[in-house]
Each structure stands twice: as C-alpha cells, then as structure tokens.
C-alpha cells in the first residue's frame, strides 16, 4: 500500500471533517484521521497540532481542557459556527477538486484504452 504525504490544506479539511462529528482531543483526532483514511494518509502525528492551533487562531475551532476516556487530562477541540461554515465550503471545494481530478484521470484511461 502506497503511503501519501499529506498536504497542509488537506490536513485542515480532514481535521474539520473529523470534528464535524463532535468534540475530540488531539490524539483522538489523529487516530480518527488515520483510521478513516484506511491508514493510507500518513500523518506525522505531531504535525496535527500546529494545524489545530492554526484553526483555533482562525476562529474555526475552540479548545477546552477536559478528561479523556482514559481518565487523563486532554485538550478537547470542537467546531465553532465559523468552523462549521468553513467545513461546508472547504468540503465542497475539496469534493469539486477531487471530482475534477477523478474525471481527468478517468478520461485519460478511456483515451489510453480505445477498445
């Protein structure tokens, strides 16, 4: 299985999507992204945190200290209203982009195989 290095903008969208399901702490977010991408997208776990803080600075997520399911202190992130709007528009843009890429790839496959 080829592993793909993740792009920064992509990571933001992934984080927003993950938080779309409710508040999560950093480790949960990291696990969740890994699991949802079938472990294809390899996130260097640490890289998640600058992204989280960046999103917080933009006002898309907010953070609060709480207790995790392990009984440990952890910082929980959740989407703000602005974050929810951003998730919608970013997801839409991302979907359009992937669709376009997919279409280009599909077309070229057709040309390549004139059966």
């Amino acid at each position: 299985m080829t592993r793909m290095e993740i792009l920064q903008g992509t990571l933001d969208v992934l984080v927003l999507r993950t938080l779309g399901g409710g508040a999560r702490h950093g480790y949960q977010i990291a696990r969740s992204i890994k699991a949802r991408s079938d472990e294809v997208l390899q996130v260097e776990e640490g890289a998640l945190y600058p992204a989280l803080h960046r999103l917080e600075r933009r006002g898309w997520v907010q953070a609060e200290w709480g207790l995790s399911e392990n009984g440990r202190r952890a910082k929980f992130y959740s989407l703000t209203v602005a974050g929810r709007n951003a998730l919608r528009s970013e997801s839409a843009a991302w979907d359009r982009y992937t669709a376009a890429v997919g279409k280009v790839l599909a077309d070229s496959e057709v040309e390549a195989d004139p059966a």
Partner: protein
Amino acid sequence: MSVWSDVRSALGRRGVVRDVDEELEAHLLHRVDDLLAEGVAPNEARARAEAEFGDVARIRETCAEERINAARRDVIPVGVAILGQDLAYAARQLRRSPGFAAVAVVTLALGIGATTTIFGVVDSVVLAPLPFHDPDRLVFVEETTPRGDPFSVAEPNYLDWRARASTFSDLAASTGRTATWTGDGEPRDLRSAWVSASFLDVLGVAPVLGRNFQSDEDRPGERGAVTVLGHEAWQRIFGGDSSVLGRSLVLDGVAHTVVGVLPPDISFLDDVDVLVPLGADPATDRGEHYLDVVGRLAPGSSLEAARAEMAALARSIGDAHPEIAGWGTRLVTVREALVGQGLERAGWMLLGAAALLLLIACVNVSNLMLARASARRAEVGVRMALGAGRGRIARQLLTESLLLSTLGGAAGFALTYVAIPAVQALGGARIPRLDQAAVSPAVVLTCLAAIVGAAVLFGLAPVLDLRGGRAAEALRSARHVDSGGGRRMRSAMVVTQVALSVMLLLGTGLLVRSFLRLAATDPGFDPDGTMTLALSMPDRVYDAPARQLLVREILDATRAVPGVVAAGATAVAPFQGMNLGNFTAREDRMPADRRDFLPIAWRVVTPGFFRAMGMDLLAGRAFRDDDGWEDGLPVIISATLAEELWPEGDALGGDGAVGSTLVWGDPEGSRMTVVGVVSDLRDIAPGEVPPPIIYRTHRQIPWAAMTVVARVRETTPATAAAIRAAVRRAAPGVALPDVGSLRAFMRDAVAAPRFNVLVLGAFAATGLLLALVGVYGVTSFAVSRRVREIGIRLALGGDPSDIRRMVLAQSLRMAVFGVALGSGAAWLASRWVAGLLYETGPHDPVTWVTVPLALLGAAVGAAYVPARRATRVHPREALAED
C-alpha cells in the same frame, strides 16, 4: 478558552509553552496507553510514541508561536500587536548596536532636554498668566515730565485721577518702603508697601486669611495701624500660624494689628513682607513723585480711550496748578511692565535656540540612522525578499526611531529636573518669575511633542532612503553599494547641521560681543575692594536731626574699623533700580519757563562717599561734615553737568562751574553753590547713558534709607564682620542686613544678559560639537566606502597628499555650503536678537567674519582625521576587502 486565559497567554510566553507542553504530553501518554494495551513493552512504548509523533521540540515551538499570535489578535488590536512586534524587533536591533544607540540617545536627550527646560522657563517667565483677576485689563499709569521722561506719581495727582477718570473702574497707588520690625530681639528690616485701600481690589487679589484694608483706614493723617502680611513673611515670622489675625507687629516703632494674609506667588508683591495703608494726602506737594499707580480699565473702555482721557486730565490739572503745567501721563499695561519686551524677546530667542539645537540633534541621529541603514541594507533586502512589504519595513524603521526618541526624551526629561534649577541659579533673582519655573503639565506635553516630532524628523530620512533601495540590488552587495541618493541625503544633512550651528554660533557671538561691551562699560566707580551695608532709619523712630547724627556716627564707627580706607553713604546704591530726578538751571542764564530747565538726576551722599567709590574730584573740593544749608547750599556736580552748563570751562570738567550758582527745580527753587566737580557715575544700569548728576549732602536732605559704602584693604569675612559689629554698636536700633559689595551689585545688574550668553553659549557649543561629529562621521564614512578606489589610486602611484586634499575638499564643500546657508538664514533672523544687543549691531562685522571662519576651520579639522586615515590605506588590504 476564557478571555482571561487568553490574556494570560498573551502576556506570558512561559504560560503558553506550558499549555502546549501539557497538550503534547497528553497525546504521547494516550499513545503509550494504547501501545501498552497492544502489548508493547513499557520501555519501548514511550520511545515508539515519540518516534511516531515527530520532532517534539519543533512542533512545540510552532504551536507556541501560533498561540501567541492568536492570543494577541484576540486581546489586542492588530495594529498594537504589530507595534509590539516592531518594538521588540527594534529593541533587539538597538541592543545589537549599543554604541549607535548610546550616541543617539545622548544626542536626543541633549536636544529634547534643552528644549523642554527652556520651554519650562519661558512658560513661567513669559507665558504664564499674571496672578491677577483679568490681568489684561490692568494698566500702570505714570506721569511724564514736560520732556516726556516717565516719572512716579504725586499723591494729589493720583487722588484727582481717581476721583475724575471714568475709563478706569478704579485706580490704586502704592509705594515701596523699608519698615524696621522690632519686638523679636534684633531689629530687622522688612520690605513694606504703603498701599491704598483700593490696591488689592484693583488687582483682584483676595487675602487668603482675614481682610483687605477698609477705606476708613486709608485716610490722610489717620492711617490705620493695621497690616496685611505677605505669604512668605507670614510663613517666616509667624510660621504660617492661622491664628495670626489680631496679633501685633511693631513696625517703625508703631504696633500694627495683622488683619490679613496675601496668597502666595503674587508677582511684584512676592518680595513684599507687609502691606500698610498709604493714606494719600491731597495737601502733599504736586512735585513730590513717588507713587506707583495701577488702574483697572472700566468695562467697555479701551487702553486708547484711557490714554486720551488721562492726557486730557493731566492738561486740566496742569491748568489748575501751573507749577506742574506740561506734565503728562504714560499708560503701560501691567503685563508689558512686568514681563517686559526684553524678557519676552530673550525667552523666544532662547526657545528658538533650543529648537535649533534639537533640530541639529535630530539631523545628527538621522545621519547615524542613514549610515546604519546602508549598512543594514542586506538585512532589509532579506526581509523584503521574504515578502515584507515596503510599508511594513518603513513602519519598522519608524518604530525604531520612536523607540530611540522615547529613550532620548525620557533621558532629556530627567535632565530637566537638573537643568531647570541650574538655569534658575544662572539667572539669579533679577529675572521675575524665573524662580517659579518647574516641570509643569505644559512642560511634559512639550517633551512628548518633542519626542514625537523628533522621531518623525529623524526617522523620515531612512524611510525615504528605503524608497530608493531594491531588494535584489541590496542583497547583491550590501557592503559596497552606497546609493547616490543616500550619500546625497547624508551630505545634505551635514550641510543642514553646519547651517544650524552657524546660526546658533552667530547669535551667541553677537550676545557675547554685546555682553563684553556691557561688562566693560566703566560704571564710573571702582567696584573692587568695597563693602556695602544698606541701612534704613525709619522716620517714625528717628527724626531728621537724629538721622543726620546717626549716619555720622555709623560712618565714624565704620572708618575706625581696621582695614577700612574710606567710608561714605548714599541714598541711591548703584544698579539697584533706583533713581532720583529733578530739574536745574544756571541762575545767570535761567530760562523764564521751568519747562526749559535741564532734567538731572540727584543723589544724597555723605562726606567720604566719592573716595569710597573711587571717583575722581575734577575741580573744587569734596563735601565736608558741615556742608548743610548754610554757606550758599554747597553742592557738587558731575563732569557731564559741568560740561553741559559751562561748555566754556576747561577740559578738566569745567573750573568755570566752581563757585557758580544753580537753581533747584523751578525758577523759585533753592539757589545752590557748586563747590566741586566729580567724575561721571553711571549707577542706573550698566550701559545706560550717564545722566548729569547733582550731589547733595545728607545734612541737607536727611534721607531715611542709606547705603554705606566702605573701601577696604581686604574684602575678608573678618572685615565684613568687624564693620557690622561697629555699626551695630553705633546704631543698636537699626536693622542690619548682610554686608554686600559694589562688585555684587554689578554682577546682579548684568545677570539677565549674562544669563542669555551662558544659556545660548551652552546651546551653541553643543550644537557645534554635534555638527562636527556629523562632519567627522560623514567624512569617515565616505572614506571607508571609497577604500577600494583610494587603494587603487595609491597602488597606481597616486600622491597621498592629493588624496587627502580630495577628501578634505569634499568636506570643505559641505562646510562652505552649510556656512553660507546658515549665515544667510541668520542674517534674516538677526533682527530678532537686535533688541537684546548693547552697542553691537546685529550685523557686527567681527562676529560675522570670525564665526563663519572659525566654523570652517573646525569643520576642516573634523574632516582631517579621516582624511589622514585615507592616505594610510594599504593598497593590498583595500583590494582584499570583501
């Protein structure tokens, strides 16, 4: 996150880092938990968690930056956040070049400190409102002689004015006296003013305690034995006791009841200890002038209207009393009289000079910054390449200027706390209201304005310079590229500096010339080796014969003190702001009309006075102890008077005068016999034209306040103490002040011009120094930029002296240009100092030749050091530089 934790994280970087640390640690612990659950060995789990996580330190740093920016943005407006970053950056930059920072801060501290200090002084002396109600409506009214000379006012005239003038809502009169206060051990002299009951009302001054005089206490012949204390005297004598009202004060042997206390800091009253009622008498001689009259303009009437009315009044009084026909009035606003044009002019001149100094300082710092800017071009280039906008960099540069200027301003502000007292000490007691100068809110505002103004002024050049720079070009060769624009700008700055300091130096030169002339004027007496003692013999305690006797005894006692060579006394101590005037004529050529009599000054002196003063007897004889009204009323006249009335007399001062008869005052006046002619005395003010003087004896006019002048072998404290003790024994009831000297009188008399010279001189010296530093700096810089070129020239056999000449010529060009520019500006501005000059034209050739030449010389000197250095450049080193 709550706002408060935001604030905390915004404020404390450490708090932010801890927060991030905890979060990352939580991640690692959760991972370790999972790995342990998967069955990984505990000692491996931690290492694996960290490996999966990546570079913990780097990530922590990135997160912390992100958080700090976020918090800043939430709590502080963006502009402020950027300012904060800029300030931090600027502070780092300054720390990196402490030499530059120190020079800039000191330079600015001098400029800002000088400006702020002088503003504080001008604010107090010139600008501060007078401490009276509606002071602009207050007018002094004086009489004028038929020739137009201003004169004090006679009591009946004041009373007539007060009764008849409608342009004034009221008039008041006062006269300064000395009162001897007894009852507390040693008799002491108090400065007293006899004032009309209307006096405080006209000024609009209300006593802080008690009351003003009532009109029934201000009647001729029955003056109330009441007194209002000056604020300072109240503190001094009664310790500020508020139960002072009703207490008694024995003044001139009469018990006065204290009825009131004046507020503090009432200019022209602040040196008065006690006020007593005047009781102006309509029966007094209209020829006796000694009152100061002040009036408050009636609502709706103007100064012009008052002038017209008073002139008409004077004419009508003159018609009714022919002996004072021809006398007029002169009205001067209190403000003009107290502040005076001279002070105002001097104040603005010094403020202008301080501003020039600040400008020079700004130009100097600007120059330093430009030099640094070209050295920093690489840094700026990197920042521009990294995407910093020109606006952002300009902003950064301005922030740096503001930081520097604030540091300099703070130092300058601290300086004012030292400088204002120093300036006050320089000015002495003769400059009114100087003692009230202090760091006021207005001074603080000036300081702030100076800081911002300076920052904009010197911060502008580097920003303008930036416009010429291009990132790529800057990066290519930071060391050797010096934009033509930058060089031109720096040269222009040195030219400006030189020009400004030429202006300061020219002004100083003129004042110094004027001061030297003033100080060198011959007062007509020898001020060295003298001691003086001002005495007053209150006429309520001592009648006329008693005063005559007392003065003789005091002088005899003084002469008996070992070391005293001669002693005499005078009613008019030199340079103490006092003068006595009258009119005279030769009896054999007496004009019919008293208006054609010659105005003269007159003095009451004792035998021994001329010797004690070191004056020369030119003809006839000196006074003797028995010179009274007998023997044809002997008087002695000054050389000028002898020459004026007896022009046919010989060069010695006119033997023709001796034995002749003079008439005192008017055609019916006393006939006086001239028994001697003495050298001229110029005792009114330094440099003032000597008036013709008639000397009369104390036996003829037993004046109450006399100043003893003793010529001594040695002016030691022991002699002073011995004189004081002798006088004390001879006159136990007379108050004894400290022993002074004629030299001290003279020093006081030139205090104001000396003050101007010293302050302006200090500015000019500082300005010159800064300008020379500028010339030196720019020349050094030019040389260091041309090391390679010079090296090549030398390598090709160039003559070192040619190179030196080339460098010097460049600096000289700047200096000549600056001197020309500054001289031109000074020529136009010189009329501003003209009013402050004594016998020195504003275009005094000596000053105008010396100063520019001296400055050119100094500039060449400052350029010489780097020029020499240029010739020592070793070709190999020069070429190897890079």
